[in-house]
């Protein structure tokens, strides 16, 4: 098993957290994980992209070049730049709360997820990233939802323990939404 994932968004949306959590969940499953990211010279704003490779074998190339199995687009500003990262036959999840017009691309499967709206309903708009991840787990099984939930506790640690509950809630809500919906 080897999966390549791209998480792209605007700085502050938590896309790097999505990538990190994916890696930690993979490690929960005793798999290997490699994550790289692009970053600007500025500390805030701009785009943020996390690239992830998870595998139950040793990971060779950590690079992603138009061969991602899953591509998560959380913000309209990065759609044009990163929709091409998905492999042919790959899955492109986009945050339809912000990406208003459906992205155009051949030979990929689109998943329209109103992540920001859903998170707002749960009471924490910033948990949109977790909602999207939960949904992705339900739709693709890239990592089990339980692995995401337990990795979340490790990622947040003691200092951010108070954030575990809302983020797990968003993960599970996203997962449930994905399960109920007809494919």
């Amino acid at each position, binding site marked *: 098993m080897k999966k390549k994932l791209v998480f792209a968004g605007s700085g502050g949306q938590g896309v790097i957290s999505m990538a990190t959590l994916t*890696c930690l969940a993979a490690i929960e499953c005793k798999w*290997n*994980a490699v*994550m790289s990211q692009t*970053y600007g010279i500025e500390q805030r704003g701009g785009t943020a992209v996390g690239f992830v490779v998870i595998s139950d074998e040793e990971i*060779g190339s950590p*690079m*992603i070049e138009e061969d991602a199995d899953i591509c998560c687009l959380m913000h309209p500003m990065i759609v044009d730049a990163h929709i091409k990262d998905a492999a042919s036959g790959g899955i492109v999840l986009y945050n339809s709360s912000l990406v208003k017009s459906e992205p155009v691309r051949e030979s990929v499967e689109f998943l329209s997820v109103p992540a920001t709206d859903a998170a707002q309903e749960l009471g924490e708009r910033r948990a949109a990233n977790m909602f999207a991840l939960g949904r992705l787990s339900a739709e693709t099984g890239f990592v089990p939802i339980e692995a995401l939930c337990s990795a979340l506790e490790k990622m947040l640690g003691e200092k951010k323990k108070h954030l575990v509950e809302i983020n797990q809630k968003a993960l599970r809500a996203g997962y449930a939404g994905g399960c109920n919906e007809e494919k």
Partner: protein
Amino acid sequence: MESNTLFMKNSEIFAEAMIRCGIRYHFAYPITPATDVMKYTAAHFHKVGGRMFQAESELAVINCLTGLAATGQLGCASTSGPGFDLMQEGIGFMTAAELPCILLDNMRVGPGDGDIIGSQQDYFMATRGGSHGDYYIPVYAPASGQEIVDLMPVAIDRAFTYRTPVLFVMDGVMAQMIETVDFTPAKETVSSYDTGEWSYTGAKDRGKRALITGSYAHSDGEQMVKKLMAKAEAMTAKEQLWEEYELEDAEVVVCAFGLPGRVCREIVQERRKQGEKIGFIRPITLFPFPEKVFAGLPGSVREILVVEMNYGQMVQDVRLAVNGRCNVSHYGHVGGDQPMIKAREVRNRLAALVPA
């Protein structure tokens, strides 16, 4: 630190490996993409009685390291391209003074201030040196977090054995990459090396020792350089490290170091499955350059494709190593967004070299 398997950024893995191997002093000046190392040591060195010292410039960094090394203790300095430029004077000095230390250069784009993401453009500066004079220092180019951990005790041993600065180079992408890593190989070894024979700890119960890299008689300079060259020769004979794959019947060999090495190995593996006779070499030591693997290449090899995140630096060493026995071509790319090395481009080059 109970667990041995962690998920960390490669720059942090470097710092944690230093701690676990017994290095207690780190000197640095903030510069992307090497700052993560000093952030980590600043937060963690004090727990083991160590110290991260932020100096006013890389000139001060390398010279603080010189002073520390003179006491017989092993320290480290980490930096990136423009800071590495400034350190060249001190690196040449420490080599002449036979002072051991560990150095890290997280390469960024240059010359000038350069972009902060990855490149491998410091190959020449790392292997040829930027100081005046004849000198070589061991250079390690790990391709993964695990290899950083595996190489740290080796580098420490070479630093003490040859009494020389030892350099690690990573590109900026590799430096920022986060990986699973097993720290089991990182054993405390620093304290097992006795430096009492040469360190400058005060003239107690012995005659004075003076560290002099200049000459007071013209023969001094000659003797010093001869000694350094003898060390370089010994390192060339004994310390070459590389990874190789499927060379026995290869017609084309891809050669790359560091992160591009990982990208290329996967491509070569995938071509082999197609039945193409392609082999792979990844130099792990850049000095000494692994000439032995090139000397031992089978006669079937007619072309070597060197892939680097620069416009042709290591390719010169490959050409020297094969000395005209086969063609050597180069694919290089620097800067822009990830991926730095386009796998598609490597595949195209290979398709041209190995017609289906």
